[in-house]
């Protein structure tokens, strides 16, 4: 401590400067490709090499490209459907896990993190082999099931962290005032959970919307979502149209995450609790 204080200020300044450079380097590394991607989506050239001038041509082309639009609508359909299902199950699951103590509830609480931490590809392959073992042929339905399975943990974790601050006396007060169990849930518990539920569902939507790995393994023939479409297009080189698609997806995801951020009053939180911890 004493030694640190007696160090020359000059020394500190160079150190701070070095640190700033390092931070700038990290952020540059993170964002430069994105900035380039966005810029070149407005580039008036078929190739991504040099800047030729500003145009909205690629966006125009994008919104007139039938297969791309089909992929977009399929992606949205999957995302909406899977989000609704995952939100319902996830919210109920989070309620059960925080509200009731049952045999193995500590284990269930901990097990929720498994899909969050295992490699996505392992999860995808596990689902695929599960479908195979059950004799289910990958199709639209399997994508939904796979997405719900994947999103469920995220929804539960987000809603559960909201529920952790719930005062059970409120439920007692509702019952005291004549509300039965269902009315108590609908009029008191659910409104309290709502910001968590919305945040969880937005997060789930984003995850589904830009998911590649899980969809890739479980989609079967003909179910080309937007990320899959982009992947197949990239095989023939990165065109400005792909840049435009990417910018569009970036925009959707960012807006939704921003909404989540606003709802939770902070960055999307994923609180990690040890199993069995109250």
């Amino acid at each position, binding site marked *: 401590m004493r030694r640190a204080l007696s160090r020359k200020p000059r020394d500190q300044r160079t150190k701070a400067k070095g640190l700033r450079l390092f931070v700038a380097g990290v952020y540059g590394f993170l964002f430069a490709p994105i900035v380039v991607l966005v810029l070149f989506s407005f580039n008036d050239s078929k190739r991504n090499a040099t800047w030729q001038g500003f145009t909205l041509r690629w966006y125009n082309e994008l919104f007139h490209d039938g297969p791309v639009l089909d992929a977009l609508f399929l992606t949205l359909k999957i995302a909406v459907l899977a989000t609704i299902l995952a939100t319902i199950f996830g919210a109920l699951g989070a309620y059960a896990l925080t509200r009731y103590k049952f045999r193995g509830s500590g284990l269930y609480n901990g097990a929720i993190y498994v899909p969050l931490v295992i490699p996505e590809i392992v999860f995808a392959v596990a689902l695929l082999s599960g479908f195979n073992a059950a004799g289910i042929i990958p199709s639209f339905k399997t994508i939904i099931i796979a997405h719900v399975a994947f999103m469920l943990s995220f929804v539960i974790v987000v809603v559960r962290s909201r529920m952790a601050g719930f005062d059970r006396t409120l439920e007692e*007060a509702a019952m005291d005032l*004549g*509300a039965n169990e269902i009315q108590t849930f609908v009029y008191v518990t659910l409104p309290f959970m709502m910001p968590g539920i919305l945040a969880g569902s937005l997060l789930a939507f984003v995850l589904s919307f830009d998911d590649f790995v899980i969809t890739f393994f479980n989609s079967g023939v003909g179910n080309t979502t937007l990320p899959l479409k982009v992947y197949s297009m990239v095989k023939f080189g990165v065109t400005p149209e792909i840049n435009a698609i990417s910018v569009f997806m970036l925009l959707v995801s960012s807006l939704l995450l921003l909404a989540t951020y606003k709802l939770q009053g902070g960055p999307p939180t994923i609180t990690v609790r040890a199993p069995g911890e109250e």
Partner: protein
Amino acid sequence: MDDFAIYLDGVTKRFGPVTAVERMDLGIARGEFFSLLGPSGCGKTTTLRMIAGFEEPSEGAIFLDGTDVAKLPPFRRNVNTVFQSYALFPHLNVEKNVAFGLKRKKLARHEIKRRVTDALRLVELEERRQYKPSQLSGGMQQRVALARALVNLPSVLLLDEPLGALDLKLRRQMQLELKHIHKDVGITFIYVTHDQEEALTMSDRIAVMNAGRVEQVGVPEDLYEHPATRFVAGFIGTSNFIEGSLERDGDHGLMNLGEGQRVLVPAAAGGSAGGPVELAVRPEKIRLYEVGQEVPEGLCLLRGKVRDVVYLGMTTQYTIEVPVLSRQFTVLEQNVEAASDQTLWVPGEETQLAWHPSHNRVLPAEGSAGAQEEDAA
């Protein structure tokens, strides 16, 4: 049983090895302001929760207006609670909080509106009806909680230390308001507090609880003047306790304090002859006399030496050493004259303690030392 708003018949509640409430028998009359008074952890909240329906008694029965409610869930009982934490619904404004119970009863909209307005007028919060609970002060939240419960016109209103979170001044003011509201609405109030002063000022009757048991039920004066147990004598106000044994002497009891000191005690005093008992004397019943000064005939008399003087404005509190009993007495004197060295006793002075035998309370010995320190004042 039908005459009571609430009747508890041998109610016991156990949480695993802990017995929170033990064989409680209690009848509370309609319209009464009834208090449950006792130290922390004595089972007051548990008792209220059983009446409200949040806990099921392990044994015994609870009757509400003459009917056994043991198997009724909270939302089927004509009882409402004011929670210590208020438990206002944070997402609803004042008006909707108060209307919550009426809406569950599916009353007509104009009827709900009228009753909510009446209830808010009663607690003087009409102009805050659109506020969210978080925008109100603690005292206002407390009044919303009260209105939310009262608006349902329950047969019994349960209040669990409703003023516990308020500062002293607001507390005093709310005590008066609660008292007024009780008079206005005529609903039975069961009021939980650990503050003896609050219980004494507000209640028609009080049940003093200790470790899950009811020690005594009575009107405030009775509890103060005729405590039934050493615990009550020590918990409500302060008492000087002297151990001894009871002897008989004609019309009056006679208590042997040891060291040849005997005092007369009221004939109705508890305890059997020869058995160990405790004598309790209130500090303000004892008068101090100069040594050699004539003391009226028939008073209990002890000699002592002033140890400590605490001037309290209206009164002065003396701690007096009584060598013959080898214990200290607390004596409270009214400051009738302007206080000065002439009128106050000073430490080291010899004095005589005297009191009328009718102030002697003989209590079954408990062997629990230090009850005097339990004074909550």
